[in-house]
């Protein structure tokens, strides 16, 4: 039987109390949200916090709301809630594409967006999704809040910009008119982590691609240089030739390793091919979105 090493447990009744506990215990304290990444790591002794601060009662962190031109998603929002939200589906089909293939229903009933991003596992699907969407995250600490772009949030595998005594409270995703987005993932079996995955988000302006975002999962730790792919796409006219170029660049700019899920070579191939497929679908969806807004 796998049991974590001993730890103390506190159930926070407010964000302020959670922050106070995190500050007091410093490096030895960890937030527990869904627990579906942290508890397995504790069972395997890959993590050994002295204190778990349970944030599951902090309902103010469980929300999805449209504020101005961004969607605000609380850190404690579960995978399942995201999947079932029509608001999320309408503006960000990429999130629903991904959520359908993240783990399985019982895991999605527990796992949260905040936990996914803070776990900072290079295979985490929502990291690639939020990267493609150019999301920003809100980190709260004793001194107040700071808003950090996804590009600066992950500082390496399992490392984030969340400091000691801080927590992630919200994810903010810009809503762009006429946007299209999609997520493509290859997994070995239903509910498994990605062999490789790619997410794309973009808008079309006068027939040309703008605001392109690309995110890859499971093909390399930390700083993937996808700026080059985004720069290539911006201003380009959608065409198979352009997707081909983008696919080649995505392939070239990732750093997969061979493991039980596949060889580095295969994953590199997938990174390109899945980028291409996500591009096709994003453009098709952007066109549909513009068609409907045009009529309205």
């Amino acid at each position, binding site marked *: *039987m*796998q*049991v*974590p*090493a*001993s*730890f*103390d*447990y506190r*159930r926070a009744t407010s964000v302020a109390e959670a922050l106070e506990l995190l500050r007091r215990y410093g490096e030895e304290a960890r937030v*527990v949200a869904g*627990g*579906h990444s942290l*508890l*397995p790591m*504790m*069972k395997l002794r890959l993590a050994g916090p002295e204190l*778990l601060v*349970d944030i*599951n009662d902090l309902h103010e962190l469980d929300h999805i709301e449209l504020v101005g031109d961004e969607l605000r998603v609380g850190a404690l929002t579960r995978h*399942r809630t995201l999947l079932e939200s029509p608001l999320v589906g309408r503006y960000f089909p990429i999130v629903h594409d991904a959520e359908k293939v993240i*783990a*399985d*229903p*019982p*895991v999605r*009933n*527990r796992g949260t967006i905040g936990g996914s991003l803070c776990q900072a596992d290079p295979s985490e699907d929502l990291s690639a999704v939020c990267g493609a969407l150019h999301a920003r995250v809100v980190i709260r600490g004793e001194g107040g809040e700071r808003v950090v772009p996804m590009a600066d949030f992950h500082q390496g595998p399992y490392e984030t910009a969340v400091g000691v005594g801080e927590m992630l409270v919200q994810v903010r995703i810009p809503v762009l008119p006429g946007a299209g987005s999609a997520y493509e993932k290859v997994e070995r079996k*239903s*509910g498994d982590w990605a062999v490789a995955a790619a997410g794309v988000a973009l808008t079309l302006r006068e027939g040309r691609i703008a605001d392109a975002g690309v995110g890859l999962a499971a093909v390399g730790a930390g700083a993937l240089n996808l700026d080059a792919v985004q720069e290539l796409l911006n201003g380009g006219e959608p065409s198979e030739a352009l997707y081909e170029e983008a696919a080649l660049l995505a392939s070239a700019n990732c750093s997969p390793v061979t493991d039980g899920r596949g060889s580095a070579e295969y994953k590199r191939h997938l990174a390109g091919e899945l980028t291409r497929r996500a591009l096709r679908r994003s453009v098709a969806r952007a066109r549909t979105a513009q068609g409907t807004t045009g009529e309205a």
Partner: protein
Amino acid sequence: MRITVNVNGEDRTREVEPRHLLVRFLRDDLELTGTHWGCDTSNCGTCVVLMDGEPVKSCTVLAVMAAGHEIRTVEDLADGDRLDPVQQGFIEQHGLQCGFCTPGMMLTGRALLDRNPDPSDQEIREAISGQLCRCTGYLNIVRSIRWAAREEAAVAAPEATTPATATATTGSQA
């Protein structure tokens, strides 16, 4: 830590270590061994119980995190001698062989029908997709849950919509 968890409608209070897993709490402390325990890594789904009505893998929930919540286990499905339609479905459609996955499968079926009384086969498959069965090939599990859906619809429908066929009702609503 002293915790109180509402299990199958009853508040159960125990002294537990924070690292105690919900599956152990149910099986060892409350002796509700209907909840099975397999991989211990949140992969197989045999440990699924309902937490506030929704399936969760109890090997990956701390008992202390379940405090103040409602847990439902397979022991609660039958009402005395009357089986839940989902249980009856597993009998009618041969939904089990060794029975190892069965408690979790039935609870997931129950939770699905509570939300969606008329699921498609695809929706049933999706609902049980986090749970492994090494015996049945899943087909009969899907049939069992579908059987339960039809049974519940049949029991509910006659009085409500087709009074002409009311003689067919068995009055099993008790």
